[in-house]
């Protein structure tokens, strides 16, 4: 039933001689445009999220650095201020203690 015809090598090699160019589907361009639009939307979405994440990270780092600097300066000042305050409150001569 499923008989296989035999062809000469030249017949087989020449079988592409009369090859006609085929046409792609008429809807292919619409499909390509839709794919480009989807890809663009995905890229925009990722860019939006990456930039948001970058801003959030920068804010987080900035806040931490700011807080650290603020409290470090503040603690040095408050130590000196504290000593001065205590000595003035109790009318102490701070030289005795230093």
């Amino acid at each position: 039933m499923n008989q296989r015809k035999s062809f000469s090598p030249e017949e087989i090699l020449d079988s592409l001689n009369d090859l006609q160019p085929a046409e792609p589907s008429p809807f292919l361009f619409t499909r390509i445009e839709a794919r480009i639009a989807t890809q663009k939307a995905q890229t925009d979405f990722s860019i939006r999220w990456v930039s948001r994440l970058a801003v959030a990270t920068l804010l987080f780092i900035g806040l931490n650095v700011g807080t650290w600097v603020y409290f470090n300066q503040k603690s040095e000042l408050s130590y000196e201020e504290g000593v001065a305050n205590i000595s003035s409150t109790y009318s102490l001569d701070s030289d005795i203690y230093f």
Partner: protein
Amino acid sequence: MLSREQFQEIYKQYSRLVFNTALGYVQNREDAEEITQDVFVEVHSKWAQFEGRASVKTWLYRITINRSLDYLRFQKRKKRFAFLTSLTDQMEPSDFFHPGVAMEQQEQAALLFRLINKLPESQKTAFILSKVEGLSQKEICEVMQRNEGAVESLLSRARDNLRKQIGNSAES
């Protein structure tokens, strides 16, 4: 950046070229359309990088060839790992139908394409560009970025290999 009109113009001018070249590699309308989509999406995204050292046509041929070979490699890998087909590591498109081949030639063409698929990639590309696309040797040199001697040798080795394989398949 390409405007919609420019992109549509490029598509109109070259879609047949891209589709038919891809068809030469995969011999299946759906797969060839998939590759054509990939090619034009790449053209759209990389248009700004196109330096114009080669013509648009040559550039498109190169993208299509690379995409088609990637597709075939992917199919081969998929087949290799597929359980049922793991014993037959061959690319044999079961649903061969090339719309450009005359009905009475489909059987011979199916056999020829099956054998073309077994050729090394560079011989396959040279043969497809010559036989399917009908490019001149000079044009093949530009697309493949090889000199004329190299292309001539690829084509003659491809023909010899095909003749040998046809002989083998007739004996078996």
